[in-house]
């Protein structure tokens, strides 16, 4: 394989290239022989003696035009016979700009992280030498290509400048892994606010971290909001300078979207600025005509404003959660938990099983498709459907060694008091968080996939020890809340901006607030929700319009003090990277070109009335 003019040329039958030197030598021989003055017999030299005599010594070889034409034909035919194919050898670079919610955070300079990322990416793309080819991606909850593949640096800079931040959490690791595994790119440039994890493995990923100091980051956000019995409960979190005092207020609307009154501001004293402060505030909506409210948290020095708002619909009717277990709900202790409506199914093959219903999978393999939040408790050994795996060996006498105290699942819990007689440790899926870990491995993993939260717990969260009324632990309640009622709200309110899955056959989807165009809705119930708000639609089961709130609630994005290093994927083999590019076979073109040259040569000879070969 050789490189020529930015292309890598390869030949299917390199032996055919031997025809080149052979053909060249043959042509030179023929033309040298032809170049010799032909010897003919004439009647007499009587007249020819008066012509200038030509030296008989051999002259230097000056090839005529016909020689070059013949050489071109031989060259083209030899190359065509060799099966020459070309691969664009220009360096291919993927530019991935993190457009997640945290990138909208303001910097002390007054710009946002996203604006800095766009500026750096544009500058890098337009200042590259060697004419590399760029493909621009925007990465948030999903990876979106925002430019034509393999464009020039200036076009890439233009495409980057047209990017806008989103309100979604990012899934950079999985996006980068997919890009690198694709093998199309020589290098992947990532512009994000997340630092690069230390790694010694070679990686094609170059991470440019937007400079920001997490210690001085300041943000206040609403991490959860729900309404119960006519009151609204909001969980407010803050970090940094915003931690002093947070003012929470709101405005409520009727079912027709008309204002129904304002919620008076409530000031919340949060606590020290060195850690994430969590406060729960009770709000009193005005009157009884309200159907949904918009809640807003205000704090001094707030860097990220989109997460200051939350939408709450009135009076959740209680969550429908299906439980896949061989035990009864009473044995599991789920009968006494208020606010949820549990329903037991035997397995995923049960006719009552619904994939769009939040699910607790107890000691069974969780459903493959994550269309609703899932809590998987003590799954059987083997791989998990959303990534990660469960150890085959059951460990005993485990001790908790590491945990994330800020995670909602561990709220109000003291992990050091958790006793673990035996458990099969788990390996978290890429992108999932190890909420609780032991020396033998992770015990609880929490993550988001396809916009749905899931928790995999190696611990037995339901202590069915034969007691008449089993006690449910605080970790279990936190997990249920985080999954089914917590940050994402209950199943009726657990929608986030982006792709959402509504009951199949739903109709009449529209935004009640704010005033936005009606989102698209497929027959399967897939809807694209562009921003937070309140939507209304009619599910086929009831036919009545139902309200759902759409909230951001991206904890990892709002918590600007948390460092989330990126683990870059390893580089694929160079052969796989080049091989993934489709080679362009030049043989038909070369053969056609040779035919064209031959045709033109024949026409030229016919026009000049020359004969073929030596005279």
């Amino acid at each position, binding site marked *: 394989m050789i490189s020529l003019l930015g292309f890598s040329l390869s030949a299917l039958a390199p032996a055919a290239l031997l025809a080149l030197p052979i053909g060249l030598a043959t042509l030179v021989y023929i033309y040298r022989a032809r*170049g010799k*003055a*032909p*010897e003919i*017999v*004439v009647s007499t030299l009587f007249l020819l003696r008066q*012509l200038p*005599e030509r030296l008989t010594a051999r002259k230097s070889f000056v090839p005529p035009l016909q020689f070059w034409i013949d050489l071109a034909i031989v060259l083209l035919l030899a190359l065509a016979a060799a099966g020459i194919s070309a691969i664009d050898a220009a360096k291919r670079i993927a530019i991935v700009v993190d457009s997640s919610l945290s990138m909208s955070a303001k910097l002390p300079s007054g710009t946002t992280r996203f604006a800095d990322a766009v500026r750096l990416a544009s500058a890098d793309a337009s200042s590259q030498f060697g004419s590399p080819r760029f493909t621009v991606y925007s990465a948030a909850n999903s990876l979106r290509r925002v430019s034509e593949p393999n464009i020039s640096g200036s076009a890439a800079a233009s495409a980057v400048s047209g990017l806008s931040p989103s309100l979604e959490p990012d899934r950079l690791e999985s996006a980068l892994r997919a890009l690198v595994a694709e093998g199309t790119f020589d290098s992947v440039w990532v512009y994000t606010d997340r630092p690069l994890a230390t790694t010694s493995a070679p990686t094609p990923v170059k991470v440019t971290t937007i400079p920001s100091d997490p210690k001085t980051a300041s943000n206040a956000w609403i991490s959860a909001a729900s309404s119960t019995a006519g009151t609204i409960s909001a969980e407010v979190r803050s970090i940094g300078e915003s931690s002093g005092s947070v003012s929470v207020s709101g405005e409520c609307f009727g079912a027709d979207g008309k204002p129904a009154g304002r919620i008076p501001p409530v000031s919340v004293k949060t606590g020290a600025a060195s850690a994430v402060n969590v406060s729960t505030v009770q709000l009193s909506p005005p009157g009884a005509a309200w159907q949904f409210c918009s809640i807003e948290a205000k704090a001094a020095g707030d860097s990220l404003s989109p997460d200051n708002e939350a939408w709450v619909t009135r009076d959740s009717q209680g969550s429908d959660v299906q439980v896949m277990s061989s035990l009864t709900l009473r044995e599991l202790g789920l009968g006494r938990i208020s606010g949820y409506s549990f329903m037991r199914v035997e397995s995923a093959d049960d006719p009552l099983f619904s994939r769009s219903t939040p699910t607790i999978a107890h000691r069974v393999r969780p459903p493959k498709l994550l269309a609703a939040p899932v809590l998987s408790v003590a799954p059987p050994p083997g791989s998990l459907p959303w990534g990660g795996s469960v150890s085959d060996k059951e460990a005993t006498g485990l001790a908790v060694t590491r945990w994330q105290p800020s995670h909602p699942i561990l709220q109000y819990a003291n992990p050091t008091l958790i006793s673990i007689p035996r458990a099969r440790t788990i390996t978290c899926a890429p992108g999932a968080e190890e909420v609780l870990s032991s020396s033998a491995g992770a015990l609880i993993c929490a993550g988001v996939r396809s916009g749905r939260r899931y928790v995999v717990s190696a611990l037995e969260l339901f202590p069915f020890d034969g007691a008449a009324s089993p006690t449910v632990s605080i970790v279990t309640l936190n997990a249920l809340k985080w999954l089914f009622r917590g940050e994402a709200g209950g199943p009726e309110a657990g929608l986030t901006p982006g792709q959402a899955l509504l009951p199949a056959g739903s109709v009449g989807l529209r935004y009640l607030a704010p005033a936005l165009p009606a989102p698209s809705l497929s027959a399967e119930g897939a809807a694209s929700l562009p921003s937070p708000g309140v939507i209304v639609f009619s599910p086929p089961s009831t036919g009545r319009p139902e309200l759902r709130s759409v909230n951001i609630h991206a904890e990892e994005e709002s918590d600007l003090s948390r460092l989330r290093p990126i683990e870059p994927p390893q580089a694929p083999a160079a052969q796989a990277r080049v091989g993934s590019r489709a080679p362009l076979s030049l043989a038909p073109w070369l053969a056609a070109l040779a035919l064209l040259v031959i045709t033109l040569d024949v026409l030229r000879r016919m026009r000049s009335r020359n004969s073929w070969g030596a005279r």
Partner: protein
Amino acid sequence: MQLSQDTLRILNAFAMRTRRSFYGIRQGSHRSQRRGHGVEFSDFRNYELGDNPRYIDWNLFARSDKLLVKRYLEEENVAIYIVIDGSRSLTHPSLRAKWDLATHVAAFASYIGLSSQDPVVISVLGGPHSQRFWGGRSFGPLSSFLRQATETLVSPDARELSLPEEARRAATRVSFPGICLVISDFLYPVEDVAATLAAFRARNMEVHAVQVLGETDVSLESSSGALTVSDSETAEVRGVALDSASSARYAELLEDHVRKVREHCLGCHIKFTSTTAAGSPVDEGIDTIRRMGLFV
């Protein structure tokens, strides 16, 4: 040499017309210098003893009281001498087309002459071949003679020949003056051409010169811009630059030489005809015969 029926039909339509009268050998169809008993009245002369009284013009005797005898022009045959240049410039295997055309012209002229009972003598200069043919049935032996001469002469052996000398030698063998057809390419100095033709003119013959040129004599071409030429007679090799200017120069030289030969022939009352062996020798030969002006 086998002539087709079409060729014979064309040749039969020709008849030889001489510009001068000659003493013939036998009774023939050409006007002779000899006075005799032909059909065409010539003049009167005084009756002499021994004259046949049948030729006395009695009407004139009645008017003038003189005995005058009517004289008539004799019609006799005319000897045709065909002299073919047997040098290597015509007989070289590479120049075979010239020789073929020359022999065809000779054969056609011979056929026409033999058809009118004229004796034909063919001489090949440079060779021992000289033979007389007489009568209409002699064309077969004449063809054999030409074929034998061809087989003998057209060989790769190169040798030089002095045409004026050979012409003088051939002219000494002429018994009766008549028509002399000299077939050659005349590509040698005009002085030698004049000497060659003068040898036959000195024998009081009506000389016709037929120049037979080959394609390589008329134009020289080379795709490489040069040519190595070999003299057919001396085997001398010479490299010649043959670009467009040289080709034009050669054409000028050839035209000038032919013009000089033609002017010499014109001054000597020799009919000069030039032809090029570029196609079928039969067609070219008939065309040459037609253009010579000797056969009508």
